[in-house]
């Protein structure tokens, strides 16, 4: 307006809620929530995390396809629309680029949108908004505009889904600088990591292993586990490090059991954070065992395991007794329901792969 009337308004910037400092974790549980340990599924934990985040911070909003009265096709947003109303949790029109694009504008204004992509492959229409804006806005504006957006994506297979319902798309996001990509493998992490993701000032791709939604643990919510950017050693061992995340953590643990039966001491690391990668935790484990394998469902070629294998090797070459192995999906489109069992990594395949090493 200066050229028009020479007055430069300076007020509106203040209307915008500045992003909150990240890093601080919640200390007090929501008053309304008892802390008694109960059997909780990943789905239930995610639902609780959304509920608590909505209750704690009026800037948190949840929208997407069917997340309102239906509660999402996986029921992760169950009852939230009824509890918080249409202005906090609502059904959007059916358009993923629109969902992510409008979330960007909301985040610019100080909201903290949590959006759901209904299935992995249905996030692809939003790829430009994610890659060219969500990932780059902070850098473009020298940190002046941060985008505290969480994009929740149920991913991977194992549920007998028809075509396009079982993609593992993590490699697309982890290769995109500016994104934080995390994935929980158990209910406690599901709760804690989603809370932390929502509290983060950076955009987070939050990958939910859909085949594990209904797997349960006894947890007392709210719970705070390790920071979401850190890997966690789930099981200690000395002979080999199995690296897994999301849906394959269970397989790694099964493989560890099978291995133990063969006298193999297997260390299992749940990566949790795919970007950033926790070089410290992983490096320490690999230097201890001198052997590592990474397990994921996505196709092998150019998959996330390639990065894991490459960086472990770069950083620990002279500690390695054998090449890092990749136990992954094949380099083919995800199969139809009846054939997915032949595609998905199994504990037996992990053991068979370990057998290929010269010990």
């Amino acid at each position: 307006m200066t050229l028009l009337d020479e007055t430069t308004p300076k007020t509106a910037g203040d209307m915008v809620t500045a992003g909150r400092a990240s890093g601080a974790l919640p200390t007090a549980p929501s008053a309304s929530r008892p802390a008694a340990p109960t059997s909780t599924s990943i789905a239930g934990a995610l639902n609780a995390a959304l509920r608590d985040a909505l209750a704690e911070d009026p800037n948190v909003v949840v929208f997407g396809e069917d997340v309102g009265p239906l509660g999402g096709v996986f029921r992760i947003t169950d009852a939230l629309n009824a509890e918080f109303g249409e202005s906090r949790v609502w059904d959007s029109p059916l358009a993923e680029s629109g969902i992510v694009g409008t979330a960007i504008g909301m985040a610019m204004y100080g909201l903290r949108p949590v959006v759901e992509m209904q299935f992995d492959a249905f996030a692809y229409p939003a790829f430009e908004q994610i890659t060219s804006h969500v990932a780059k806005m902070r850098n473009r504006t020298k940190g002046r505009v941060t985008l505290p957006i969480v994009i929740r994506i149920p991913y991977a297979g194992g549920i007998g889904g028809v075509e396009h319902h079982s993609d593992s798309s993590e490699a697309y996001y982890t290769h995109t600088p500016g994104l934080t990509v995390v994935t929980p493998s158990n209910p406690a992490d599901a709760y804690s990591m989603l809370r932390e993701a929502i509290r983060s000032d950076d955009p987070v791709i939050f990958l939910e292993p859909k085949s594990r939604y209904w797997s349960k643990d006894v947890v007392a919510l709210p719970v705070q586990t390790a920071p979401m950017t850190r890997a966690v050693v789930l099981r200690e061992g000395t002979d080999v490090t199995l690296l897994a995340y999301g849906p394959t953590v269970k397989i790694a643990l099964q493989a560890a059991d099978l291995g133990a039966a063969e006298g193999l001491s297997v260390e299992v690391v749940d990566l949790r954070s795919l970007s950033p990668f926790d070089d410290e935790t992983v490096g320490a484990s690999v230097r201890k065992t001198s052997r590592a394998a990474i397990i994921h469902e996505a196709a092998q070629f150019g998959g996330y395991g390639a990065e894991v294998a490459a960086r472990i090797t770069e950083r620990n070459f002279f500690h390695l007794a054998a090449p890092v192995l990749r136990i992954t999906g094949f380099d083919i489109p995800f199969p139809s329901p009846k054939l997915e069992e032949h595609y998905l990594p199994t504990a037996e395949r992990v053991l068979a792969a370990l057998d290929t090493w010269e010990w």
Partner: protein
Amino acid sequence: MSQHYFMSDDVVVPTLPTTKPIRLLSEAGRPVTGAQTAGFSMPDSDTLLGLYRAMVLARRFDAQVTALTRQGRLATYPSALGQEACEIAAVAALSPQDWLFPTYRDSIALLTRGVQPAEILASFRGDWHSGFDQREHRIASQATPLATQALHAVGLATAAKLKHDDVVALTLLGDGSTSEGDAHEAFNFASVWQAPTVFVIQNNQYAISVPFSKQSHARTLADRAIGYGMPGYFVDGNDVAAMYAVISHAVARARSGGGPTLIEGLTYRMEAHTNSDDPTRYREKSEVADWLGRDPIDRLEKYLSAAGTLTDEVRESIATDAEALATATRDVMNETPELDPLELFDHVYSAERPALLEQRAFLAHELAETESDPAAEHTEAEMAARA
């Protein structure tokens, strides 16, 4: 060169779609006259009887598959119960050389066009992603990523036009899918290229749980046509006579070089979105009951019966055919198709890839091992036995 359209005097002011849906048959099955027909006329009785027969068979098939799905025999099945008028009219309006671009919801359109139950069900029971020969039937695979197939239809229609072939491409779209960017791009490419394409939106008023009021703020989806300079028709989607008349008109228009048309059929999804959906969470039973009273088959049946076209004899013969179809459909599910997991590697590329052959060999080896030792597991006992 650029188009100074505002300077030319022969700009055609577009005709808005009607506010009431175009209708030829009242809900009571009586012929409609006057403005609501928008000048369309009733198809002849042979055509109507053919449509009736196809709708009855389609419904029987759909009900049978839904039942099989409830028994857990299929991975999923999106029913088109209540949408038969849109589905069958769309197929009936096409000539053999034309192409159909359906969605997951449109199995009965495939059936009506001659795809066998076994071929249709292959994907829903999880054998392979698509189970029929697209080229044989001139039907594209049933699209899951919403609205993407509309662009394929425009491309195919454009290719046919470039080759001076007499081919029209018709695509079925859901109301929800019109919110996707691809729907817009398809409308726009079709109109700019004047591609012989017909867009039939089945507005069944829900996208899974999301009602149409949260999908669009427009009076009708047919209004979208205005923004692309193409004709748009808002039609009673439960009136198969009207749907057939309007779609046929659009197909003829496309065939004669008149370009694309957008048609919205207002209908209702009587069943859940798929077997894994729970519609009680988002809609009243009374609403469903309400729409039961506007059933597309009932309506035509009343009309044809009153006209004397649908005799008891014909009705019975159709019923017999429908039962035979249901039996054939059940039979399909009693056959267990031989699936070769190694075929997973065979169609990814036309050329062989050494790395893929390695992976194929790995699986072949694994399968052979399992076969030779079906109980094979890495158990302690087994290890001990081996040692």
